[in-house]
């Protein structure tokens, strides 16, 4: 009887010990992920540089391509809880023709904020982008957003139309017919299955560690509350709406609805593309939007 009791105790102690060890290991790993340099070594070798700036209350990090060509800069805005890291392949593909800037939104990636800082709304993030643009000495830019980034760009284009020469919205969220976290997470999981051979998951882990779970969930809530369809009607800048044909997060019907709201928009479907198009298929993304970018650049020169 006593032996049985002892065995039970030993099992509990071993279980607790294992649990503590796993937690410690997890915390250590989490800390390591937080320390990941903001620009991946591969992109760094390809010429992508980065710098920090104090912008208002935030310290923001920006990646920039070596091409200092004249004309409008192209700014890439990342999606939910991700960072500009995921935009690096697209930035490099676009850098053959354009000067590309990739900021990390405040609170994400290398523009990390302390956990005590408040979670920013879509409008506040748009304000931050506007300030960031001015700090970098540009009046206007062509903006390319993915997923949640599209919501921020829509807010920016409505609030500061003078800053937006053109907009590319790829896989805009949140489909109003599936406006709930479980449904969005389910769609995201289905998308992950399609991207299994080139998964953006490892990048997402780094960015979640950097942003922190509190900010991640807070921003998800902000994303759900924001209605992109209520903003698009007021956008006057020429806009390209783009989706991959297999993207479960942004269905074709949703994109058509958005296009109907915008008089100056055009839509494009990239055959067989998925939701994280900018990361999984950057070259195809680049060649799909190149004619649109070239047209905006040309129109800007005439002005």
């Amino acid at each position, binding site marked *: 009887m006593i032996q049985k009791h002892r065995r039970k105790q030993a099992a509990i102690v071993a279980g607790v010990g294992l649990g503590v060890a796993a937690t410690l290991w997890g915390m250590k790993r989490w800390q390591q992920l937080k320390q990941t340099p903001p620009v991946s070594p591969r992109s760094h070798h390809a010429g992508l540089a980065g710098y920090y700036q104090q912008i208002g209350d935030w310290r923001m990090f920006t990646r920039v391509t070596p091409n200092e060509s004249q004309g409008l800069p192209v700014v890439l805005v990342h999606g939910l809880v991700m960072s500009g890291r995921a935009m690096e392949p697209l930035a490099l*593909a676009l850098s053959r023709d354009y000067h590309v800037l990739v900021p990390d939104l405040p609170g994400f990636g290398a523009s990390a904020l302390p956990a005590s800082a408040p979670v920013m709304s879509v409008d506040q993030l748009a304000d931050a982008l506007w300030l960031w643009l001015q700090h970098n000495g540009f009046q206007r830019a062509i903006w390319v957003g993915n997923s949640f980034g599209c919501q921020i760009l829509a807010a920016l284009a409505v609030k500061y139309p003078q800053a937006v020469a053109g907009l590319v919205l790829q896989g805009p969220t949140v489909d109003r017919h599936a406006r709930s976290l479980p449904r969005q997470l389910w769609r995201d999981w289905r998308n992950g299955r*399609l991207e*299994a*051979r*080139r998964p953006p998951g490892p990048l997402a882990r780094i960015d979640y560690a950097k942003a922190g779970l509190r900010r991640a969930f807070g921003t998800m809530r902000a994303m759900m509350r924001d209605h992109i369809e209520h903003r698009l009607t007021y956008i006057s800048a020429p806009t390209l709406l783009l989706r991959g044909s*297999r993207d479960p997060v942004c269905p074709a019907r949703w994109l058509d609805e958005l296009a109907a709201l915008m008089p100056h928009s055009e839509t494009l479907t*990239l*055959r*067989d*593309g998925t939701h994280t198009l900018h990361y*999984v*298929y*950057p*070259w*195809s993304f*680049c*060649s799909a939007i190149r004619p649109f970018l070239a047209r905006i650049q040309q129109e800007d020169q005439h002005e």
Partner: protein
Amino acid sequence: MSKPPKGIARFDSAAAMLLALANALHDRPFASPSQSPTLDRLLPSLNRLPTGLREWGYALGGMAEGITLRQAGELDVEGIAEWMVSEYPQQDYPAAFIGSSNGALIHLAAAMGVPWLPQTFLCPVRAANNDPDDAQASFEQGKEIAAALLAAWPRLAVHHMQDPNQDRLMLDQMRYFRLKLRALPLAFNEFLMGSLPAGSTLFINHCTRQWPVTRTSDRSFFQFGALGGATEKEYLQGGPRVAEYLARYGIDRERWTPPAITDHVPEAEWGLDGYLISPLKKLAEAQGLKLMEIRYEDPEAMSYVVAEIYRDWYLAAGILPTRLTVDSFLLMDPWCSMQQHAIPFWLVFCTEPSAAALQRFLEKQPPFRNIDMMLFSHGTDSIGLAEIARWQALLAYAREEGALIGVDEERFPRDFATFARFDSALRERAPLLPPPPPLSVEKVITGIQRYGAKHGVTLTALT
């Protein structure tokens, strides 16, 4: 190397050649076409079984590769293309090949250190209790599967292939569909754009070999017979060799009776479907690539040309090549051939026409000191099969030693353990030395121009 997704057969030209080349580009041998250490361990035991059981085991192994009708309708072509490109190292290349499968071309690409993307792959679909000799029934029953595959990806051409001569064992429980990509999957597009800087060369490997077929739609065909030991006429009209073969297998027929021929289209396994050329031209123009087309009819024509290019490549590096490695269908290891400073000569199959091709080559070459030869086993005493004695006679062309590599001569053509054995056996044949520096694109272009004309291989610039 990751496991291929469902819907692409590993024991086939496209998948195996892709893996052989990818391994060479990763600087390692092509040790296992099966990609499965368990299967590699099982194969030698399978070889010890009596003939009937061995054939049954072979067919069972093939069946494991097959998919169901339902899976055919959900075939993930994009996922298969993703797998293909993910096998190669991610880096910039000075050139790339795309198009027809060809063993000699794999050696050429390996010497250059550049990738090749296949247009065609084999998708076996399970279908219980078939009669491999009943062409009419296969034709009718295959239509449903072909329709499912056509719907799975709208830019696919589906070639239903029925070859009771050479695929007899597999056809009992499966139907063969060779799928040709008529447009570039997004993964191919991405790979080519991302890894070929402006000014690089994209070679289209265009085998013009055709085969008489019964067309069932704009994108689907039924091909009876295949390139190998028997002739087109024998498949379609019969002959003494066909009657004898059928009698040998106890089949109550004089000849096969395939459905009426309505068209001639690119051969299912080796031919190139020309629809792919137009998207490649667009890609080359947009990316500033040089687009060139290598064109030939007989797949083995490339073997002569590549052997000559290899010889020049070795000589330029101060190496006197005295060793010949003869590949058989998918049994090849370009990494090993280069490391042994051997000239490769690839044969389509273990049949008499291939043996004759090798003989023509050997007769015109200065004698090799060593000849190493692999032999593919397909499990059937098929029409036109070249027996062991015939191959041994060819090995006698070697000045010092000619040897069959990893082949169990008594069990051929049912020597299934050769898949697991050939590569380690080949590596033991000679010391592995560093190969010459990678073959340049210019050398390849001048090589094909110089040696191609004699063997019916042409090179044309398309941009």
